[in-house]
């Protein structure tokens, strides 16, 4: 294939169906892919699974799907195809980068979810990433007009995840993303690109494979070649690197709760802000959720972790019959005495077969936190209720 490209006989064009362009670039660097790769983070192409290979002749006509590499040269490259009739060619419509102002004005004049969705698409693909709020507004209009617009729900979810990874984040953005992806999947259960987006962050029991476990190997091998590897803006989370696995077992039976008598003072000033995301947002009895908990020092209070004391701990206390793995988590300390990075935990909770309604799983974090530069440091507790919806 590479030879055909080098000889000028073939153009290979990749289209990456994932959110992060820098991860695609790292993948391409690792595999030395020498062809252009385009980015479709919101699945505008409507591809339902990957990989899909489409051979297109010099007239723009699709000739083969899933071409056989053994016969590809003879059956496609060396073959002479008949040009299409003039009428057909005249009907072919060329695509251009869209004019956002035109789309905005069209959307405002219509009551169609399509026009609002198309405005959202243009904003995600072509506007500055800081315009993500405008894309969220456009897709929100689309789902308001047509609540069954699965494309708009999926893309709205992508936008909330993009915002969650940006400075404009709101604490509920990740959960809102998952809620919209879940809605999209309910509308179109056979859309595997949408399904994979939830599985990427979801429990191990629903993962088809690890999604980004290759990142570490790729980075190592690229550096070994003497190259500087593409730097990732957002590193893959634990859930994006672990592989498929069974549900949680209460393995750490010997671990003890760090504050059994609830004596540690509560963080009533919200020096640490907590975000909880449950994936999927609802499960049937006997199923598993993956919970992402992020703790961020409150910028308004100039709060920061005290790294010279004990590390941040999270204890999960499931009700009888529920299983959690692991039950006690400890975050790595920062590399300086005082740091203010977000600290992330992930764990899985398995509901018993007789669970129902909305169940509360208790959890709490214990941390040493300081307020202001050289200010007071305290050892505090924050209770973190985790609400799990059981669908019958």
């Amino acid at each position: 294939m590479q030879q055909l490209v080098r000889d000028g006989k073939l153009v290979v064009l990749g289209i990456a169906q994932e959110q992060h362009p820098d991860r695609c670039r790292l993948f391409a660097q690792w595999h030395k892919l020498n062809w252009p790769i385009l980015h479709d983070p919101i699945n505008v192409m409507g591809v339902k699974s990957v990989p899909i290979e489409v051979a297109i002749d010099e007239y723009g006509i699709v000739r083969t799907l899933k071409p056989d590499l053994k016969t590809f040269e003879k059956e496609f490259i060396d073959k002479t195809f008949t040009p299409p009739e003039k009428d057909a060619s005249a009907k072919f419509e060329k695509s251009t980068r869209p004019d956002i102002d035109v789309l905005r004005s069209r959307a405002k004049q219509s009551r169609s979810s399509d026009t609002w969705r198309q405005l959202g698409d243009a904003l995600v693909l072509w506007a500055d990433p800081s315009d993500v709020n405008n894309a969220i507004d456009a897709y929100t209009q689309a789902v308001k007009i047509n609540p069954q617009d699965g494309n708009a729900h999926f893309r709205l979810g992508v936008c909330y995840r993009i915002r969650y990874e940006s400075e404009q984040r709101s604490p509920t953005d990740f959960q809102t993303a998952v809620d919209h992806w879940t809605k999209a999947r309910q509308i179109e259960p056979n859309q595997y690109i949408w399904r994979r987006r939830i599985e990427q962050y979801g429990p191990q029991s629903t993962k088809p494979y690890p999604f980004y476990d290759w990142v570490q190997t790729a980075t190592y091998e690229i550096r070994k070649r003497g190259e500087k590897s593409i730097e990732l803006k957002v590193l893959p989370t634990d859930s994006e690197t672990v592989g498929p696995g069974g549900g949680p077992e209460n393995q750490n039976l010997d671990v003890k709760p760090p504050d059994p008598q609830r004596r540690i003072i509560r963080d009533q000033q919200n020096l640490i802000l907590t975000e909880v995301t449950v994936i999927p947002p609802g499960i049937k009895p006997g199923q598993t959720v993956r919970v992402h908990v992020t703790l961020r020092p409150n910028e308004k209070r100039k709060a920061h972790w005290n790294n010279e004391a004990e590390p941040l701990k999270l204890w999960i206390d499931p009700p009888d019959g529920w299983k959690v793995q692991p039950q006690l988590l400890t975050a790595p300390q920062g590399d300086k005495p005082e740091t203010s990075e977000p600290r992330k935990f992930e764990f899985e909770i398995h509901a018993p077969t007789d669970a129902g309604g909305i169940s509360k799983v208790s959890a709490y974090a214990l941390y040493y936190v300081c307020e202001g530069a050289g200010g007071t440091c305290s050892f505090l507790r924050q209770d973190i209720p985790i609400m799990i919806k059981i669908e019958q």
Partner: protein
Amino acid sequence: MFVSGSFSSFAAGDYPPRTGQFHPDFTLPNIEDNKPVSLSQYRGRKILLIHFASW
């Protein structure tokens, strides 16, 4: 006119198009520089379009 992000013709499970049909044109950003790339700019060349994900 097809504009990027308005693939109404691909909706409802129409992708990939059938053999013997025109592949609808599209415009998407290149991951390297975010510049727009359209399928139609390669007219006259044989193309292999690969939809993939790094996972």
